[in-house]
């Protein structure tokens, strides 16, 4: 049955703007901040003063089809929030005292330019590093500003150990098949679902290591899967917790966190040994099948099921169901990246996709590039670096995938190391654009806090005064929100425009900050005619050979779909030379990764299983003291990572940090439901409220991330309570795999005990800001 098709389309013209009563309606794309990874189309309603009054989902949008999540619906509350940063602020007290002086943008630019010139002169541009948060609409502004204006080669996600969010999967896919791939829900065509002449609902969708309806990660709307379910798709869900989707699934694999690779290897064993694979695809298009076949023999379903804490029957059943589905599809998520063996995990899962013939077919996993192939990501502007500078990128000397450009960012742990040790060169200035690392992205947050404290000059550009800004910034600059920006979006397809329809005090578009600084610092690196963000967009479109201007895309309804083809490897659409095959050294889909071998066996060429660094089996003695497996990083409907903690509506629905625990475990450890508890390991501790969950393995607990408390005092030692409930107090840095990717975020061990007055006298934030940390860091 078709639903939600009763919109009155007379009220929703396909034009950019119209008038509705007293309000101006602007039909455009949303992209954080605040927000998420997606680019839904919506209608912003602004009053005569340009103030955002309400939003509606755009019924004409093929992407979100009129629907929106709660975070977009509460946008007016956030965009007009009294606590938003309104103008540039200069620190006047000590870092952490929260004492600021309002300054003009010109003064701010002068301070930045003076510092940049000083560091450039004294220790070279490489002593300046720029970082961002996840999936933000700043990568192009960040890259262009860092490379062209500052002249340094380092851009990365803010202290995300092992770059462990999507980047491992992306790097793996590039070495394995020369492309990214995405679960196909017909999203790359304007006509969706049955209106697409080729798309077919997958018979089986494996939802692997994410909860799509909540997370909507990696530019994928989770409810597309719900639409596919309505059209007959059956689910297999791999998750330590029974998510809503898991309850609807035919098979739920409640795996031990961090054992995804073991599960995938066990499934490969079944599919290969039971001869369920796609012989045609394997023979024509893959490299290394015999090696893979030999490799998976040791990964028997019996042994892998035992490792994963699931039963063998379910593993075998899931393998058979996926292999027999025509088509079958895998929607993978963050859990894949957030393990030390993230690359191997991704490889094992992609081997499943490949050998079952589900690659680049309707309803399978499709190959996709950035829209119009524009370099609008971390690498935007990298060709403006002076000769010899690119080679100084941190981590490139250690990690071959970085050296040869398979990874587009600096290796985050290596940046931390350079800040701490001054090696291989000093890092003195940090530029944080829409990133709040000590609240969210930085593993071992107390260590990162201490490292940044030692830096000479730190600039934070954000929407609100964050814990990171209070503790560490010398300058805080206000960023424009989505509807206050002119921009284009190229993450996959369609090519979309963001059309500005409001302003807020002196908040500026990220690109404008780069343009303004360019005039001061490096005018020769910018075309003279680029003065506004619109100019910036049109310049990049022109540079990328796109035949449209931003205005022309807006005239087309603000989005343009490129023709989307399936089985591109058959049609010569994947390789630079136009030959059929994949863009890899062998021209094949590489089950055995030749690049790893060619670079001197920098990493195993075949997927493998290895226990997490700390686990019931790798550190059994330690597990006696910390007898629970702790996983974290899952999303909530109400928040995007550390955002939305100052939104009244989000907090009404979700007031405090919650961790999930099985009632049996709770009883064992003397915990009642709703009680504040300490979660602790050898590194430190944090506190959250116990929520009972009978669907968990009693040996597993599950904690939330990203919590800080805007309602609390900003100044240290309170610092918005940023370390009080922060699982990054107990997650290490530098536990990446052989390629520099991956981190054990999802597979830790810990103990849990109830908070008492006696054991809560010193909060973790006081411990870190006043008493020097938990005592385990160097």
């Amino acid at each position, binding site marked *: 049955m078709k639903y939600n098709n009763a919109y009155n389309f007379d009220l929703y013209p396909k034009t950019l703007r119209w008038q509705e009563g007293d309000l101006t309606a602007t039909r455009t794309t949303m992209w954080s901040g605040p927000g998420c990874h997606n680019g839904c189309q919506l209608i912003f309603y602004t009053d005569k003063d340009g103030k955002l009054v309400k939003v509606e989902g755009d019924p004409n949008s093929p992407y979100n089809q009129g629907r929106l999540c*709660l975070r977009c*619906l*509460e946008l007016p509350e956030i965009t007009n929030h009294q606590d938003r940063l309104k103008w540039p602020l200069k620190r006047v007290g000590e870092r952490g005292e929260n004492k600021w002086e309002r300054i003009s943008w010109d003064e701010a630019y002068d301070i930045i330019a003076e510092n940049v010139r000083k560091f450039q002169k004294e220790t070279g541009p490489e002593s300046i590093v720029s970082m961002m948060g996840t999936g933000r609409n700043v990568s192009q502004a960040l890259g262009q500003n860092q490379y062209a204006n500052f002249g340094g080669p380092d851009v990365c996600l803010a202290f995300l150990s092992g770059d462990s969010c999507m980047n491992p999967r992306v790097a793996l896919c590039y070495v394995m098949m020369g492309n990214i791939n995405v679960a196909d829900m017909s999203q790359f065509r304007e006509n969706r679902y049955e209106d697409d002449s080729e798309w077919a609902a997958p018979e089986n969708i494996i939802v692997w290591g994410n909860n799509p309806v909540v997370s909507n990660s990696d530019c994928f709307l989770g409810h597309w899967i719900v639409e596919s379910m309505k059209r007959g798709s059956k689910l297999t869900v791999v998750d330590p917790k029974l998510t*809503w989707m898991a309850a609807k699934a035919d098979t739920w694999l409640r795996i031990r966190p961090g054992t995804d690779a073991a599960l995938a290897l066990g499934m490969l064993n079944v599919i290969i040994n039971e001869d369920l694979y796609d012989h045609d695809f394997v023979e024509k298009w893959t490299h290394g099948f015999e090696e893979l076949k030999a490799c998976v023999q040791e990964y028997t379903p019996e042994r892998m099921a035992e490792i994963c804490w699931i039963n063998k029957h379910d593993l075998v059943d899931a393998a058979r169901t996926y292999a027999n589905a025509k088509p079958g599809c895998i929607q993978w998520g963050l859990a894949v990246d957030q393990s030390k063996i993230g690359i191997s995990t991704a490889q094992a899962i992609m081997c499943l996709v490949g050998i079952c013939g589900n690659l680049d077919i309707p309803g399978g996993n499709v190959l996709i590039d950035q829209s119009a192939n524009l370099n609008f990501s971390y690498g935007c502007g990298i060709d403006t670096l002076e000769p010899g500078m690119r080679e100084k990128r941190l981590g490139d000397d250690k990690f071959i995938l970085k050296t040869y450009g398979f990874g587009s960012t600096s290796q985050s742990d290596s940046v931390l190391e350079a800040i701490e040790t001054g090696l291989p060169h000093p890092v003195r200035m940090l530029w944080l654009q829409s990133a709040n690392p000590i609240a969210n992205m930085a593993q071992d947050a107390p260590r990162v806090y201490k490292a940044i404290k030692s830096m000479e000059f730190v600039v934070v550009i954000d929407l609100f005064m964050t814990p990171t800004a209070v503790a560490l910034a010398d300058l805080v600059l206000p960023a424009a929100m989505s509807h206050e920006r002119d921009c284009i979006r190229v993450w996959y397809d369609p090519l979309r425009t963001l059309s500005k329809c409001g302003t807020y005090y002196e908040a500026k578009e990220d690109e404008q900050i780069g343009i303004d600084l360019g005039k001061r610092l490096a005018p020769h690196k910018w075309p003279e005619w680029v003065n506004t963000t619109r100019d910036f967009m049109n310049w990049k479109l022109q540079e990328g050979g796109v035949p449209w201007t931003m205005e022309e895309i807006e005239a087309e309804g603000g989005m343009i779909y490129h023709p989307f083809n399936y089985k591109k490897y058959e049609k010569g659409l994947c390789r630079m030379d136009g030959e059929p095959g994949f863009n890899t050294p062998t021209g094949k889909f590489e089950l055995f990764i030749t690049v790893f071998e060619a670079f001197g066996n920098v990493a195993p060429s075949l997927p493998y299983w290895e226990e997490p660094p700390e686990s019931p089996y790798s550190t059994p003695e330690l597990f006696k003291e910390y007898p629970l497996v702790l996983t974290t990083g899952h999303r909530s*409907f109400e928040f995007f990572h550390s955002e939305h903690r100052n939104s009244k509506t989000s907090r009404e629905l979700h007031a405090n940090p919650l961790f999930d625990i099985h009632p049996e475990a709770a009883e064992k450890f003397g915990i009642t439901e709703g009680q504040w508890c300490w979660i602790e390991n050898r590194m430190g501790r944090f506190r959250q409220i116990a929520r009972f969950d009978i669907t968990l393995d009693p040996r597993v607990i599950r904690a939330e991330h990203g919590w800080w408390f805007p309602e609390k005092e900003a100044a240290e030692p309170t610092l918005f309570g940023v370390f009080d409930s922060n699982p990054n107090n107990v997650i290490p840095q530098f536990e990446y795999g052989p390629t520099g990717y991956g981190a054990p975020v999802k597979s830790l061990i810990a103990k849990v005990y109830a908070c008492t007055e006696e054991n809560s006298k010193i909060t973790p934030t006081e411990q870190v800001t006043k008493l020097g940390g938990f005592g385990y860091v160097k």
Partner: protein
Amino acid sequence: MSNNTERYGLLIDYEYCSGCHVCEVACKKEHDLTVGQWGIKIHQDGPRQLDNGRWEYTYIPVPTSLCDLCADRVKGGKLPNCVHHCQAGVMVYGKISELAEKVDKDTMAIFSR
């Protein structure tokens, strides 16, 4: 019962309600409701395991006494805000009699306002 045919309401296919809170927030914003007040509220059953090993885990949005089926929006030709934005596309607005005709499976409920 002839009056009922002229009543309006919401048809909910709760097999696919994911519990995403969108109807709650859409309503709250449209009606500018204060903290603690809701015009529609999602109720949750489960997760609990059935004797056959499968799981019951169901959400269903229930309109409250504050729901006016978005009279102002509807007058202007639009859908109620919850129906417009429901991410799972499980809500239909219409005359009760027409909604009843759409009921073709288990897990469907009609709320009359």
